């Protein structure tokens, strides 16, 4: 019986500064073959363990990226790490995006802040397997332009997909739109029948985006959400991450809206 | 018999909370005046004796201190006017509590030492160290966990 609680120790190959409070750890994990949307449990020994979405595409075989926002006691230590340091990882865990199910369809990605991390895994996957999918639009919003993550990918994405950006508040050097990401829904006119919306971001953003999508007549089954919860064990044992009788760590973090709609506390 | 043997050569660990304005300066003076006193006291500088939460004292005992020393300004000399008056009440009470819970109240010592009393500071530490040597190790963690 293998012990799922024991992390494998891996080296940090590189660290990318995504924004002022988000760093991406590039880890020496090869041929993981995860599904986009799955997560890893990342250990900083002595400080603790946190669930982090894999932000790199499974088409990359030499490493994985974990993008971490500095928000708490473990993440602040993660931000002090340097290339060459050792961390622990276990996973991949959870159910990712229904990549096969949405194959051939159009996709509307809607991300808020660090919520772009799991989406990026999927978007980059589509970039590498472009023929398998229809039209792709990406709507992304962050607090300020400086808070936007994966900016180095934007040019690449623009060349293949339809990318719309928005910042919550104005800032110097930002000439793009200001407002919340749900406002960007007005900019796109997807073929609802043939489109899946894929959403990840802060709870309040997801809630308003879902409302926007429902106003556009998106069926619940075609709204794909990636949730964040306090997942301690990642394997359905510790009881912290339930939404009703579902555990976000093993039954999610990706759910279609129809699977969770009826439960209390989905938005908090 | 074993306990007795343990006492031989036993060097008590003392955590000392010293107020910045008086006791810490007093300890400093003891040092610069080259007055000898046992090295058993580990000093923690605090801004005032009233900064010392009873929690600090209890935590020190839990983590292996055999004695805790709190040094503040003499009454009426507090840098913050009345901090040591609160400290005085607080630690009178704490001594009674630890005694009730089975820790010798002599393991907690509160003294008012001024910046000019280097010799007195040394003398108190000597005395306290001697007292603790006689009392032997506290070993609170071991005694609580294993019921020794």
């Amino acid at each position, binding site marked *: 019986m293998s012990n799922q609680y024991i992390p494998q120790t891996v080296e940090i190959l590189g660290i990318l500064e995504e924004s002022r409070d988000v760093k991406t750890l590039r880890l020496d994990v090869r041929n993981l073959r995860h599904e986009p949307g799955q997560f890893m449990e990342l250990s900083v020994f002595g400080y603790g363990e946190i669930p982090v979405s894999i932000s790199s595409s499974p088409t990359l075989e030499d490493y994985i990226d974990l993008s971490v926002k500095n928000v708490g006691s473990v993440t602040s230590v993660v931000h002090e790490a340097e290339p060459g340091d050792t961390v622990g990882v276990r996973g991949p865990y959870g159910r990712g995006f229904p990549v096969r199910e949405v194959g051939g369809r159009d996709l509307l990605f809607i991300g808020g802040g660090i919520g772009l991390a799991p989406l990026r895994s999927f978007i980059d996957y589509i970039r590498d397997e472009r023929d398998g999918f229809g039209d792709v639009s990406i709507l992304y919003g962050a607090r300020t332009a400086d808070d936007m993550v994966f900016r180095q990918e934007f040019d690449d994405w623009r060349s293949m997909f339809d990318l719309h950006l928005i910042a919550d508040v104005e800032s110097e050097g930002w000439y793009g739109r200001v407002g919340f990401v749900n406002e960007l829904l007005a900019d796109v006119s997807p073929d609802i029948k043939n489109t899946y919306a894929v959403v990840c971001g802060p709870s309040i953003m997801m809630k308003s985006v879902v409302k926007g999508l429902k106003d556009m007549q998106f069926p619940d089954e075609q709204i794909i959400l990636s949730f964040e919860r306090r997942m301690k064990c990642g394997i359905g044992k510790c009881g912290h991450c339930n939404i009703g009788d579902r555990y976000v760590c093993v039954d999610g973090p990706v759910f279609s809206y129809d699977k969770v709609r009826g439960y209390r506390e989905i938005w908090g | 018999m074993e306990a007795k043997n343990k006492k031989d050569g036993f060097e008590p660990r003392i955590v000392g909370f010293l107020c910045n304005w008086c006791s810490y300066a007093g300890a400093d003076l003891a040092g610069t005046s080259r007055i000898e006193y046992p090295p058993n006291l580990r000093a923690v500088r605090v801004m005032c004796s009233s900064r010392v939460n009873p929690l600090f004292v*209890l935590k020190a005992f839990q983590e292996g201190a055999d004695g805790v020393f709190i040094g503040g300004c003499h009454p009426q000399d507090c840098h913050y006017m009345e901090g040591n*008056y609160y400290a005085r009440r607080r630690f009178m009470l704490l001594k009674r509590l630890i005694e009730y819970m089975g*820790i010798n109240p002599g393991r907690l010592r509160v003294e008012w030492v001024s910046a000019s009393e280097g010799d007195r500071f040394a003398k108190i530490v000597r005395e306290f160290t001697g007292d603790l040597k006689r009392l032997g190790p506290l070993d609170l963690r071991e005694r609580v966990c294993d019921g020794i």
Partner: protein
Amino acid sequence: MGSDTENALKREARNLLKKGDVDLVLGYCMEGDNVIPCFISSPGEVDGLVWNNRCKNNLAVYLRELEGRVAVVAKGCDSRAIVELLKAKQVEREDLIILGVSCRGMVDKEGEEYGSCRVCLHRNPVVYDLFVGEKVSEREERDVDELESLSLRERLEFWSKQFRKCINCLACRNVCPMCFCEECVLEKKDPEWITRAGDASNLFLLHAIKATHMAGRCVECGECERACPVDIPLMHLYSRVCRDVEELFGVESGMNLEDKPPLAAFDLERDAMLEENEKNKRG
């Protein structure tokens, strides 16, 4: 049915609700064979109110969470807790109507009087707006604590044995009307003074800290001891602290709205004398 006091209580509660003087009556009701705290908001429900020797809960613990004007049934210990809550500005006097009742000591399911009630010194409410029933006579002095006769070593052994049973459920904290801190040191994460993942010395620390926090606050209602699933005799510890505060600083908590919190006050001359005395006794 029901005693005269109970009927009087119902009458007052009904009046207050009918006149709209209060939004809620906080009292005791029956559920099966049990007496439980209840929140009554309409005159029609008042018949459910009871007053008997099973009304053990200290209702003051609920007051901070309640909105609007509340009439609360208060025996001696509840009223003392209310006094402390008022002193700490946790509740507003004008939001409260205190329905004082005198207590003859509460008993458990088997009819045995609770330990804290057996030694209670204040069975009559110390503040109230309306009093129902009759006053009872009070005991004058505290009992001798049998633990005092133990040696230091025996005491540490005794408490260690008790605390090793502790499952860290914090029921003792949550039932305590005096434990109202928004952030509790017992569960603080950074720094983590007491860790759940650690050994039993953490439990010793937990209870010692909690005892220091009871100084000048504890009203000796005994709720902590009753709530403790593993029967740790917490009231011994807290009563000892109360007794020390009384002996040293002459303050009995929950008795007088004008009393200053004893650890946020001082008396220069007296404290100097006390210090001298204590030093002679305790080094």
